[in-house]
Every structure is written in C-alpha cells, then in structure tokens.
C-alpha cells in the first residue's frame, strides 16, 4: 500500500474518547447519593432540566477518581429505581457520556478555583468500547441496601396532573403563576421529604445563612427549588389555553395538590390569616429583630425577652393552624436556628400563598 494511503487508513481509525472542556458539566447540582458504600458509587445530580448520574469507575494514574457522567430521562430513572431495568441499560442508552477525572473529594456544585479546574479533565465518550471495562453487570438492579439517601417506599413516580385555568391570561400572569407555584411546591417538597431522605439537612444549611432582608427569602425559596431532583421538578406536558383550560404538569401530584389546597384554605380564613400575619410583622419590627442577622443564634441567645419569644411562637402556631400546615412548619422549625428565622420564613411563605390565592380568587385558577 502506498505510504500516503496507509496514513489515511490510520487516520480513519476512530478515536473513542475526545478531550473536551469541563464547562460541559459545570453548573450540575448535587441531589443525593443513589448508591453508597464507604463512599459514593452512584450519585444523582441535576442541571436546569435534566437528571445526571455520576458513576464511580476507576482511579487514574495520578490517583484521581474517574467517573462516568451521563444524563438520564425521567422514565429511565424511574425504571431503574423501580428495579425494572439495570444500570447497564441506562449507561448503554444513546446519550451523551463523559469520563470525568477529578481529585478525590472534589465535588460538583462547589465553586472551584482555577487550580482545581486545572486538576480535572473531561473526555467525551465517542464509543461505548471506551468504557467497556466500566460497564455495570447485566443484573445491576437498584438495591435499597446500598442506598441510605433514597426511599422508594413513598410516592416517587412523577405523574401528570392538571391545574385548571380560566379567564384571560397575559404573559405576566403566567410568569407570576409559575414563579409562585414552583416556590410553594419547593417548600412543600422540602418540608416533607419522601424520595430524598436528607433534605432537612440541606434546608438547615440555608436557614443558617444570614437573614437580613427580602433577598435572603428569595434565595431560600430558589435554593429549595434546587434541592428538587429533576425527576420531581415541575415539567409542563401540555397547556390547553381555553376558558376553561388546563396546564398539565408532570411532577408529584400530592405536592402539587398541596399548593392549590393551601391557597383555597387561605381564601377561607383570609381575615384571620391576615390579622395574625400583621401581628407577627409588627412584633418583629417592634422587637427590633426584623432586619437583624440572627441566623447563628439559638432561641436562648436571641435579644428578646421570654414573653416576646412566646408571642412569636403563639402566633406562628395560630397561623399554621388556620392554614393547616402544622407538619410542614414543625419540619421547618426543626431545621431553623430560632423562632425569629422561623417566623420570617413563615411570613415569606404566607406572602406566596396569598399570591396563589389571589389567582384563585380572581378566577385564573379554578
């Protein structure tokens, strides 16, 4: 064979891995470990829309860990967690796949400096032959005995449900609805964790962040949204814009129902709820704690007299009683450093509930 032709033939041999920028997987948010034995075997992450799995594969010659990173659809993830398909099927599905080499102990979702970024690299898998030695077994079915962070005993399969709409909607209404609905959905999801069992720890960290203004409250609700695995995030399946019409959402129906239920309850007890809310706001202001960062203080360290603390506790209890969100508030209280932070979160939540209730009372949600 002529030399030039031989070289062309060599060049035609396909490469199975291609080095790419680590930016391909930046912004992934850790949700939980799916399988764990002395360390994570398989972890669930999310980006803005998709579920991603990180499978521990190997150690490279520089003692960095090598992970296979790949996205999975909701259906694939549900089938795996139901133990109907093995992990191998998910790995071999026609999806993009990457091999991530990273120093042990460095996790995604952290702010990495330039040095840390330089110590890791990412390879795009062009052919499954490149990962043959890492492929899970044919019977690699999900096993709860390796899964301390997940329970599939409770509701975890996302299902389609309708939110009934009416009236004439403008873009602003859709925007307002989606923002407030998703924030209350996140609150209910995080305050009674079902699928991911350790969410209260994550919420605890957020509640111990400085609480000095409205900005923190927005941050808290947005942070709680990021705790939701993509599997359970609010996915719009269909919108029928008519009078009456509907928005078909795929998520956890029981959590979705809670959002509209609490709006309805607010309308029924609007006067009482508003009065208690007013008393609490006034109290925070007159006790001079509304703008203080008290996130690192326990109840006994608060700059309040015992009767002030009791006042806040009493009216918080009354507010959660009329709105019938006692369990959720207890869960919040357990993660909160003190009653002032709990009160601020509760008031922020009630503000959002009122916005949903307004959409209901004005006939946008039926």
């Amino acid at each position: 064979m002529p030399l030039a032709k031989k070289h062309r033939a060599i060049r035609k041999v396909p490469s199975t891995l291609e080095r790419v920028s680590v930016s391909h997987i930046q912004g992934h948010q850790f949700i939980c470990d799916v399988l764990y034995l002395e360390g994570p075997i398989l972890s669930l992450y999310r980006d803005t829309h998709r579920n991603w799995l990180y499978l521990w594969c190997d150690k490279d010659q520089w003692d960095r860990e090598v992970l296979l990173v790949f996205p999975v659809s909701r259906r694939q993830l549900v089938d795996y967690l139901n133990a109907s398909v093995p992990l191998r099927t998910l790995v071999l599905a026609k999806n993009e796949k990457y091999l991530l080499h990273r120093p042990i102990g460095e996790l995604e979702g952290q702010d990495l400096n330039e040095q840390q970024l330089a110590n890791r690299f990412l390879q795009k898998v062009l052919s499954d032959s490149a990962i043959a030695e890492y492929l899970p077994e044919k019977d690699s079915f999900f096993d709860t005995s390796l899964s301390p962070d997940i329970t599939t005993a409770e509701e975890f399969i996302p299902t389609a449900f309708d939110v009934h709409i009416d009236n004439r909607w403008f873009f602003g209404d859709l925007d307002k609805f989606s923002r407030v609905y998703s924030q209350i959905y996140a609150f209910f999801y995080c305050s009674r964790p079902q699928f991911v069992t350790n969410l209260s720890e994550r919420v605890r960290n957020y509640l111990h962040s400085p609480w000095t203004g409205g900005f923190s409250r927005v941050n808290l609700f947005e942070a709680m949204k990021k705790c939701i695995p993509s599997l359970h995030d609010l996915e719009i399946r269909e919108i029928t814009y008519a009078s009456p019409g509907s928005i078909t959402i795929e998520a956890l129906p029981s959590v979705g129902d809670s959002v509209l239920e609490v709006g309805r309850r607010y309308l029924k007890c609007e006067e009482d709820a508003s009065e208690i809310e007013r008393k609490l706001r006034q109290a925070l202001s007159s006790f001079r704690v509304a703008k203080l960062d008290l996130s690192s203080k326990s109840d006994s360290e608060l700059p309040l007299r015992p009767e002030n603390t009791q006042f806040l506790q009493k009216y918080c209890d009354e507010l959660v009683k009329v709105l019938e969100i006692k369990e959720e508030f207890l869960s919040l209280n357990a993660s909160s450093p003190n009653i002032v932070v709990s009160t601020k979160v509760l008031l922020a939540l009630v503000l959002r509930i009122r916005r949903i209730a307004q959409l209901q009372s004005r006939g946008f949600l039926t």
Partner: protein
Amino acid sequence: MKPQLKYAVQLKKITDCPGSAAVSKKCSGFRYCFPKLNDPKNFLPRAHLNPSGRYRGRLVKECCEGYALSMYTSHGALVAKARLALKHSPKFLKYLGDHFVELAISASDGICTPPANGGHFSFFEAVGFDPLKAVKAHAVLAL
C-alpha cells in the same frame, strides 16, 4: 463506664453523637482494607481521609459516622455488600480495598453502635486504641 473516645472533641460538636445506643463490648469487627496492612487509608475515619466528602447530604466531617470506623459483623456481610457494589461499578475495590481485616475489639477499645440490617455498625475508637494491635486476620476478600 464508657471509655474516653479518640475524636471526642469533634464528636462533642455533633448533636446526639454517638448516641445512647452505642455501647462498649467485646466483639469482632470486619472492615475493607488495602493489601498493605499499614496503609494509612485502612484505619482512618472518613472525616480524616476525605473531610470534603459527603455522607447523607452533609459534609462527612459534620457527621457522627464520619469519626467512626465502618465495620461489619462478619466476613460474609462484608462480601455481600462488596458484591452488590461491584455489580454497579466493577472496579470499586480500587476504592474500598480488595482485602479485609478482622479486628478483635474489647470493651475498653471503644464503643459500637447496634448492627443494622446487613451487619453494618460504627466503631468509635477509644483514646489509645491501636487498630494494628487488634488485627486477628488480614486477607484477600473471598468474593
């Protein structure tokens, strides 16, 4: 009386840790380890090996279990868990260690949590406990 624990300073910062269910007792503990018995990875708790690692959604250094040695009640229990892990990640022994070690634990060596399903328990070492002196067996995992 419970012995003074090796990581008492760190444990004190964690609520209800190690918990009243943990007791001192004479028992055998099995644990994954690497071929060289004196490999530092063999007998250090996770919070020291990898402080930025995570356990149950929290930093391992903030978890009670982070300061305990992870143990199993039998070699069989250790093997069963390793087999499950290997189905998903065929090279996971590179992380765990492909050997096991059996430790003879006496009541003064530390305290143990009650074994969970699957035979796992956490062993909180007492001050002065030297795991190398407690080794009864060290061999390749019989997978």
